[in-house]
């Protein structure tokens, strides 16, 4: 039985989490994007060894360290270029480029444009925080006119680039947009990008909590975001609003927002991801004048760059035979470079690793007003939730015993421990539904170890309540075990405990 089970298990999100310390500032939107990429990866059904993340330079470009796949932290702005080479050299690879608004649109603007127009088979995620984060807050090509930054003390006088319009102008075959604060939407868009053959370009609005914290407030505010976002669905009318009471229609060459109370549905534009003119219109619709279009703006099929090259190589070989690279190199214009005596380097030494004054200033900035809910989430720890005493069993326990125990205690989750009482697995009522009921004939002779989730994620050392919520929302977990320093279970919390606690203590 355990054999058939292991066959079913493919990769999980955990397999894509690397052992590197994530160096982004707490609260940075990059965390959310990382989590969603890690969530989508297992769905690709591609071995980790065939996946590569390539980035340039910037906070966002630290991404490859945090993915447990192949990765290249490359040259500023040149990630699409390296990726192009890789895609041609090994068309089997699943290639992802991670870039920022500075990396991809300033220094790397040209590289990005040409990768897009070539339709190289790769996915490009552009983290748009409208600022240079890594270099501590200078204006970027996407900063709004008038934006005061370190490099534009009187406000920038340059018009911003619209990444979507730029990608469309470069003939990108897949163009989409999402936002860090809507993880479900982001995950959907990333899966669609992953499925695209050719270059998929995804702009993700990302919050830089340190240097540009208010940039996406309107679009992130959960209570209001549906009023200012236009969620695109191929074949569906362009309707938006919390109560789906507004739509987009054309007036001459200009889209306009209308109320569905006044205008019939027939007049509302219907999204067609294959239409180039519509894509241009959607790309040009900027918030706050319009709701921000989110989702897949363009999705068309064209031959990929590598396929075109392979075809030409095959044709050339058929006509002129296999070439000889050495002969080509030795053709003419050759000379020998002889070694010169070098002075010993004076550069040997260590980089100073002191804390950056400038950065401390930013952290010391006037504190943002927080609500009681926010304070509660970050200042109260999970021990305040009164975790339940864990009911533990060992992995050899029979399913029938385990189920009796769950029913006796009226609980939905058992903690499985090893010989040294350390956490080794978790077995929940979901497992009873998904893997046991009607599937296992003899409950008395089946061991819980074969049906549990091994090595579950656990909370250590009493973290803030927000950490528990984070893991629950990320993984859809309903229960989280708490463990001590030795990984011995000390309690269990359920999401009901969290909601009840917040409700009670804030009433």
């Amino acid at each position, binding site marked *: 039985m355990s054999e058939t089970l292991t066959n079913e298990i493919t990769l999980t999100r955990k397999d894509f989490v690397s052992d590197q310390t994530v160096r982004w500032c707490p*609260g940075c939107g990059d965390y959310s994007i990382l989590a969603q990429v890690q969530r989508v990866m297992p769905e690709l059904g591609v071995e980790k060894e065939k996946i590569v993340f390539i980035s340039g330079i910037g906070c966002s470009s630290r991404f490859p360290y945090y993915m447990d796949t192949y990765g290249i932290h490359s040259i500023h702005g040149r990630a699409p270029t390296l990726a192009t080479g890789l895609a041609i050299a090994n068309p089997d690879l699943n290639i992802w480029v991670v870039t920022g608004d500075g990396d991809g649109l300033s220094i790397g603007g040209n590289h990005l444009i040409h990768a897009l127009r070539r339709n190289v088979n790769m996915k490009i995620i552009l983290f748009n925080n409208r600022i240079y984060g890594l270099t501590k807050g200078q204006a970027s090509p996407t900063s709004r006119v008038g934006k005061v930054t370190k490099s534009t003390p009187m406000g920038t006088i340059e018009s911003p680039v619209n990444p979507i319009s730029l990608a469309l102008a470069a003939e990108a075959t897949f163009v989409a947009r999402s936002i860090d604060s809507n993880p479900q939407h982001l995950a959907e868009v990333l899966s669609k990008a992953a499925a695209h053959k050719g270059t998929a370009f995804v702009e993700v609005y990302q919050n830089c909590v340190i240097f540009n914290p208010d940039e996406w407030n309107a679009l992130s505010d959960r209570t209001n975001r549906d009023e200012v976002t236009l969620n695109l669905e191929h074949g569906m009318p362009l309707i938006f609003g919390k109560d789906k009471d507004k739509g987009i229609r054309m007036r001459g060459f200009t889209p306009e927002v209308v109320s569905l109370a006044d205008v019939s549905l027939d007049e509302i534009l219907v999204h067609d991801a294959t239409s180039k003119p519509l894509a241009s219109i959607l790309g040009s619709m900027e918030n706050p004048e319009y709701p921000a279009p989110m989702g897949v703006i363009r999705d068309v099929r064209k031959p990929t760059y590598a396929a075109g090259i392979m075809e030409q190589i095959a044709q050339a070989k058929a006509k002129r035979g296999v070439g000889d690279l050495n002969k080509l190199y030795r053709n003419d214009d050759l000379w020998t470079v002889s070694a010169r005596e070098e002075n010993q380097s004076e550069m040997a030494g260590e980089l100073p690793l002191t804390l*950056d004054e400038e950065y401390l200033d930013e952290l010391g900035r006037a504190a943002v007003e927080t609500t009681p809910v926010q304070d509660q989430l970050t200042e109260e720890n999970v021990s305040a939730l009164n975790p339940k005493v864990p009911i533990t069993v060992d992995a050899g326990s029979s399913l*029938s015993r385990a189920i009796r125990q769950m029913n006796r205690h009226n609980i939905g989750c058992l903690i499985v421990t090893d010989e040294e009482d350390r956490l080794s697995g978790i077995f929940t009522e979901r497992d009873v539904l998904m893997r046991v009921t009607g599937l296992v004939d003899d409950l008395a002779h089946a061991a819980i170890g074969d049906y549990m989730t091994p090595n579950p994620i656990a909370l250590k050392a009493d973290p803030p309540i927000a950490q528990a919520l*984070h893991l629950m929302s990320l993984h859809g977990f309903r229960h989280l075990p708490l463990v001590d320093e030795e990984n011995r279970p000390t309690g269990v919390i359920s999401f009901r405990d969290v909601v009840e606690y917040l409700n009670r203590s804030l009433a």
Partner: protein
Amino acid sequence: MSLESELRSERVSHLRLSGFTAVPAGTSVRDALGRMRSERNTVCLITKERSLTGIFTERDVLRKVVDVADVLDGPIDAVMTADPISVGPDASAASALGLMDKHHIRNLPVVDASGQVVGSMTHMAVIEWLAAHYPVEVLNRPYDPERFPRKAEGG
């Protein structure tokens, strides 16, 4: 602002509701379980002439099915909870949460005016709402707090 007052201004239909498996009354427990598994849902709603007549959840599987003889091939009607509590899509999220607490239920079907079930509200909807509402606090945290950088350094 308290959590409750924030949730009061949010309608149930604005939350991310969970999916459900729908089967007609009289379906065998075995078939319902198969559907729940393949659709990856933990709640099954039972309907008769399109109107909601019962609910069957993973907790019911644990309590009334897995270790109980002779129910698998019987009708789902025998193990479901009949006439479940439900709310309309315009109910406030706070009142829905209140109902769930009061009746100790974890799945609250949301039924529109025409009797159509539009989803099932669970505590997960509240968790996801909180995560989206407070991205800086909840969403954007390091995966493992033990590997939290000692020095925040923009990159």
